[in-house]
């Protein structure tokens, strides 16, 4: 079988335990998403052979990697800040584990031909990551691991490189594991997303599944679902602090549930103050492409992301109608 498999992989440090982790990555991109300290980097170290698991096996294309040193695994690893060799030029870095003609090919693909004669200190953060990626790909790995390669870049460069990575990964035919704490990078780049919490995989699924059908409050919150309420099932919806959020459910009336609503799924209507939910604007924050509006529903507070046009017409104290496009129940 091709691809990367982790079976029952466990690693204990003082005060921290990773796993047991079971994951299978075919020729696809698995984005591992989690907060710092959740064990993402440790997971990559175990696959790359930079740390030994206490238990479990790692298999790549059918062969067990356990006990093999890092140089013997065919696993390429791109580090957070590139880890370029500072005493070598960009060209020498890329050629470190590759032939010269391959260097030129990959330099063309990653658009770094003009940078090849420079040394790492003379490269920008984004350029460094391009060269680091080129160096890893030039070694022709059988699996590619990336450890938050975009996290130290400025937003515009990060977005551009992220979009390019999306295309590049599509052209690769090896399993890719992309570790990040950024939900957007995970859902843009991952064919599937694994959410990691305190060393355990909390949920694995397509980006849509993880975003729209989170299986736990942690996954919901970490993937950007800010409105999470303890609620009780009533007729035609769930009740939160005396306010009924309309939702269809098969759960029995009176059952306790957790209701999740993404801010982008809340619509505010200044004119429709008589529709279902009504509230008072508490705060209006300009986030550039949209407004973030906090509405007090007379008990629960609701965070909404609304278009600029809607947001401009709102001010603290205004009465607004709110409708929820999607209420997800846990």
């Amino acid at each position, binding site marked *: 079988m091709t691809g990367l498999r982790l079976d029952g992989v466990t690693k204990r440090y003082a005060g921290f335990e990773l796993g047991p982790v079971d994951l299978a990555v075919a020729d696809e991109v698995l984005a591992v998403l989690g907060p710092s300290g959740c064990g993402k980097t440790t997971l990559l170290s175990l696959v790359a052979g930079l740390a030994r698991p206490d238990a479990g096996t790692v298999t790549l294309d059918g062969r067990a990697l356990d006990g093999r*040193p890092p140089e013997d*695994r065919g696993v390429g690893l791109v*580090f957070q800040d590139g*880890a370029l060799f500072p005493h070598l030029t960009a060209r020498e870095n890329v050629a*470190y584990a590759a032939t010269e003609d391959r260097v030129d090919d990959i330099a063309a693909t990653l658009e770094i031909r003009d940078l090849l004669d420079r040394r790492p200190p003379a490269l920008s953060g984004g350029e460094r990551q391009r060269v680091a990626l080129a160096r*890893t790909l030039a070694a022709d790995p059988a699996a590619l691991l990336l450890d938050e390669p975009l996290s130290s870049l400025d937003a515009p460069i990060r977005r551009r490189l992220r979009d390019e990575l999306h295309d590049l990964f599509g052209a690769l035919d090896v399993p890719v594991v992309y570790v990040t704490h950024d939900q957007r990078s995970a859902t843009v780049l991952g064919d599937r997303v694994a959410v990691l919490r305190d060393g355990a995989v909390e949920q694995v699924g397509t980006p849509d599944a993880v975003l729209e059908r989170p299986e736990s409050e942690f996954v919901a919150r970490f993937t950007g679902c800010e409105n999470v309420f303890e609620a009780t099932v009533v007729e035609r919806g769930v009740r939160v602090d005396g306010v009924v959020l309309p939702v269809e459910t098969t759960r029995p009336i009176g059952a306790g549930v957790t209701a999740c609503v993404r801010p982008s799924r809340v619509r505010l209507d200044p004119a429709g103050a008589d529709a279902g939910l009504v509230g008072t604007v508490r705060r209006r924050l300009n986030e550039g492409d949209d407004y973030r509006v906090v509405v007090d529903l007379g008990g629960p507070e609701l965070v909404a992301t609304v278009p600029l046009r809607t947001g401009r017409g709102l001010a603290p104290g205004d009465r607004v109608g709110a409708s929820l496009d999607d209420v997800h129940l846990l």
Partner: protein
Amino acid sequence: MSTHSTWRRYARRPDWFTLALALGGLLLLYYVAPLASLFLSAPPGAVAASLGDATVVDAATTSILAATLSTLLGTAFGLPLAYWLARADTRWTDAVLAAVVLPLVLPPTVGGVVLLTVVGPNTLLGGAAATAGVPLTRSLAGVVLAQTFVASPFVVVTAKAAFEGVDRTLEHASRSLGKGRLTTARRVTLPLAGPGILAGVTLAFARAMGEFGATMMLAYYPRTMPVQIWVSFISLGLDAAYPVAIVLVVVSVLALLVLDTVASNPWR
């Protein structure tokens, strides 16, 4: 009252920074003046003439040869130990480091005594070596052993710091690019630690050139330059000691030059 406080505000405060320099300057003078005096005491002609003297040439040859050998020995065995100390993940490193530093704090004559209990002519090892025709005392081998004991810790301690200065992630990167430990050390770790290692090697060489105490105990013959200085001073007086002393001062200054240019001076 207000006049008084205004007066105080504009009064000259004692300038402590200048005073610090003045005090330190006295110490500095104490370092530099004797060196200058040494060069003035020995007329250049006399020094040049005595440099051709057979005993001086022999002492210089012995010193340079022995110091080179002991530096090579110290580097060959010291670099692996330094690398291990820098990368090992055990609590034993502290104890090992203490053992490495011991020769640095031990009085050199005591070092000589300690060594004689192992390589002296009446010991198991020393006796066997002497029988085999390689006496470990009163020989070039003895000089090298004494110098290695006293000087090699400089290589270990300085190179350890240099290795620690190399980001482990770079070694991890090299390994995950398919290069083994040895290739990684050769192509990544050693070049990056190079200036620090060179500093350690330079310090060890300088220390070996100046080694006197332990060398005296192990090998009065063949005479190294420091031993020759002492012999000349005792038998012929101070004037006879000048030329070799000047040679050693020049070697020390050259070592400093290396530290301040190609190597990374650990004290800067």
